[in-house]
């Protein structure tokens, strides 16, 4: 499978405000690709740039082998689904959906057939003649999707499509989106600020911060091997210990020394350990032991989250709650174990 989108050295600025800086991304065909980042990071701008609603000052945008930077939105063959769905209130569901086909001068009978197909696909057959204001949020979302996919765009662009839904509906829609993608095999770009959403749905993710791409990769790779602190922090809770490393041994300058790390020498680096990778009992031979003191605990259901003082620094430790494990209380002295293989130095 080749790349369907190549974004090369894209720069966008509004006056002095540099919104996108030298952005380079390649997106594979049929990929479910996510732009992830906090609000104002430039992810939506890039999506709109692909759709043709923003202009870049420099760089190239290639869709399916064609440079499209100078093309109008209606010439690009990409479908954008808006955050607020942007359903036209003066048209019925059916009319909303058939709009794009009519614009493409598709024959009438084919339009009817394709509209019915897509309505069935999103499970909205019965609501064909309704007006948007007669629909619930989730139904509006489905119509917005249907309206876009019915024209079979080369790329489907989704701008925070789930953000206007409540939590339960959001999970359900997420699954439906994924099923839809599997069925249709359309390259999809998804914009969100929710890392859990991104992880659960994407083949690949690009993480944005302040207009710069931080890292691109599959969710698990990004989670396990963040290239920088921003990515590390953004993809979930992580313990960061500042210090130096020499000959595979990390030291925070106090009591904390972790050996047998695979990393180059550095005088200024950070050790990253996810809370679930610190244990209260030894699990592997290569685990190394440290002394700690419980500061507080938090019951989260499937896990218990402790704040533990280790070598003068508070670290977060997640312990699976299985029902039989030992529960520690405040000020209790504990042994903790860290494995160099599940730790990372950057």
């Amino acid at each position, binding site marked *: 499978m080749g790349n369907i989108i190549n974004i090369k050295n894209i720069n966008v600025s509004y006056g002095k405000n540099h919104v996108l800086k030298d952005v380079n991304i390649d997106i594979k065909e049929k990929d479910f690709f996510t732009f992830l980042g906090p609000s104002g990071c430039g992810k939506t701008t890039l999506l709109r740039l692909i*759709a*043709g*609603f923003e202009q870049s000052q420099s760089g190239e945008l290639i869709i399916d082998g064609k440079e499209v930077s100078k093309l*109008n*939105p*209606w010439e690009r063959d*990409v*479908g*954008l689904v*808006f*955050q*607020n769905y*942007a359903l*036209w*209130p*003066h048209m019925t569901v059916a009319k909303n959906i058939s*709009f*794009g086909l009519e*614009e*493409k001068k598709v024959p009438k009978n084919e339009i009817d057939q394709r509209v019915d197909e897509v309505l069935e696909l999103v499970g909205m057959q019965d609501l064909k003649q309704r007006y*948007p*204001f007669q629909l619930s949020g989730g139904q509006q979302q489905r119509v*917005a999707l249907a*309206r*876009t996919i019915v*024209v079979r765009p080369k790329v489907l662009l989704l701008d925070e499509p789930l953000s206007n839904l409540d939590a339960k509906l959001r999970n359900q829609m997420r699954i439906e989106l994924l099923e839809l993608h599997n069925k249709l095999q359309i390259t999809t770009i998804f914009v969100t600020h929710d890392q859990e959403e991104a992880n659960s749905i994407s083949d690949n993710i690009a993480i944005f911060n302040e207009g710069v791409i931080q890292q691109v990769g599959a969710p698990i790779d990004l989670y396990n091997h963040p290239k920088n602190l921003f990515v590390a922090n953004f993809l979930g809770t992580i313990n960061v210990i500042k210090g130096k490393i020499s000959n595979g041994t990390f030291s925070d300058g106090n009591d904390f020394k972790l050996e047998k790390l695979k990393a180059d020498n550095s005088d200024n680096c950070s050790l990253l350990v996810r809370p679930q990778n610190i244990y209260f009992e030894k699990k592997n031979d290569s685990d190394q032991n440290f002394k700690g003191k419980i500061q507080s605990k938090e019951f989260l259901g499937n896990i218990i989250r402790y704040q533990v003082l280790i070598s003068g620094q508070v670290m977060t430790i997640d312990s699976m709650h299985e029902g039989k494990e030992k529960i520690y209380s405040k000020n209790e002295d504990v042994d903790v174990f860290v494995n160099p293989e599940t730790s990372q130095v950057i």
Partner: protein
Amino acid sequence: MFKNLFLNSTSLIIGVFLLLFLVIPIAQVFYVSFLDVNGSFTLVNFSDFFKNQLFIESFYNSFYVAAMSVVLASVFALPLAYFTSRFNFKGSVIIQSLGFIPLIMPPFVGAVAMKLFFGTNGSVNLLLDQYFGFKIPFMEGLNGVIFVESVHYFPFILINLITSLNNIDRSMEESAQSLGSKGFGLFKRIVLPLSMPGYIAGASLVFLKVFDDLGTPLLLDINNMLAPQAYLRISSIGINDPMGYVIAVILVVTSILAVWVAKMALGGKDYSMLQKGGGGMIKRDMKTRQKITAYSVVGLILFLVLSPHIALTLLSFGTIWSFSVVPDAYTIDHYKNIIFENSIFIKNTMLYCTLAAFIDIVLAFFISYIVLRTKVKGRQLLDYIAMSALAIPGLVLGIGYLRTFYSFNNPLDGKPLASWWFMIVLILAVRRLPYALRAANAALMQISKFLEESAESLGARKTTIFRKILVPLMTGGLLAGFITSFSTATVELSATIMLVSTEVDAPLAYGIYSYMQTAAGRGPGAALGMIGVLIVAVGTYFSQTIIDKKYKKTGEVNNG
């Protein structure tokens, strides 16, 4: 206890006011139209109306003129609204401010001025005839009325259209573009339908206004329309001729029907509520050729809609303007004449319109409070009645006032109440109440109810809440209502022409009208018109800046 007493008595007072000065006069008109020679109920007057060819023709003409004025006004308003909301267009500010100026000049004054420009032997036709050997009958017969009215009233469509275009969420348009739609197709299928509610609101207002306008056809010597027929019947045959009342009833019924049809056409679809973002349409830069087209279209339209002002300026400074492209020579004597000898019209107008607008905002404040915030019985009715003044032709209200108040004498001077100058203030107040009410409603809706409730829980009484919380917060909205009422009242003629009994009591519009009835009066009349336009324009400008400042201030508070 006090609270309810206060609110109930206020509602009662407002109710009585509306009953006396709106409902009863109109009811009088309806009542008389159904009376036969013996004073008992009959439909024969209406059958006379429909048997009389002239009345049928007048009805048809009024309808035709109103409808065509809507069409022509749309032709003026659509490109202006389109360019301003669609492109990064330098002319936008000019359009938006100049586009409103026609409203602050009485349409019949525009008629006089436009006759000089576009008449059979007006400037334009003289030039056309000289260079091309043909003339265009801009002002012949009904054409003239349509032309003058649409130039005067097109801002109603423009304002509403621009507002509704700006309310369209830009994603509405982008999603269509993303699906392959572009250009005019996009405009036709998405933008136009979405701006329809605003357009229809504006268009129906234009229809109503044109349908009941009296001054313009009168000055253009068009008799066979309904409003002039009613006026002519009553002023020549007498206040007791039933046909005048029958025509008045037909005017009211048609107006209400027009409002109803407009409402039906919308089918209760107010899209603005359903869209979340707003932010207006995508604005694009224009290519050079587009720019040239846009500027020439806008230039032509602006020339057309400002032609009354241009011609009026020339007339007010001109000595003799007869069968020539421009006046023979120029002078400032007309202004001297007005300012030194006849400033009474200006004083009267300032007094009447200030009082009327003041009455309006006081009434509007209490009505909107009662309707939106209380559970006083019949509050909705209060609102309906107050708003219904919009659909009542000024002429009909004027006739109703004459009928109702002529037989009562004013205790101050023993003359009929109908000829007391304060009745002019009242009729102006009633006529313009809907504008003020709309502004007050909008202002009150923006204020959170909690602000009042928190004051109440701290022990404040209703009057204190009004004075210390609501009035300060609503100042901007109330001031906007004041200006709209004031500036539109200054140009009113239909209602006041029936009530003005002496020249000393006459307002500006009437003064101009009577000036225009003497050979030497055209210049001074025009000068008077110009001064009126200037006063309203300056007043509006200053109030607008006050509103802007106020809005910024409260805006900060609300956001912070």
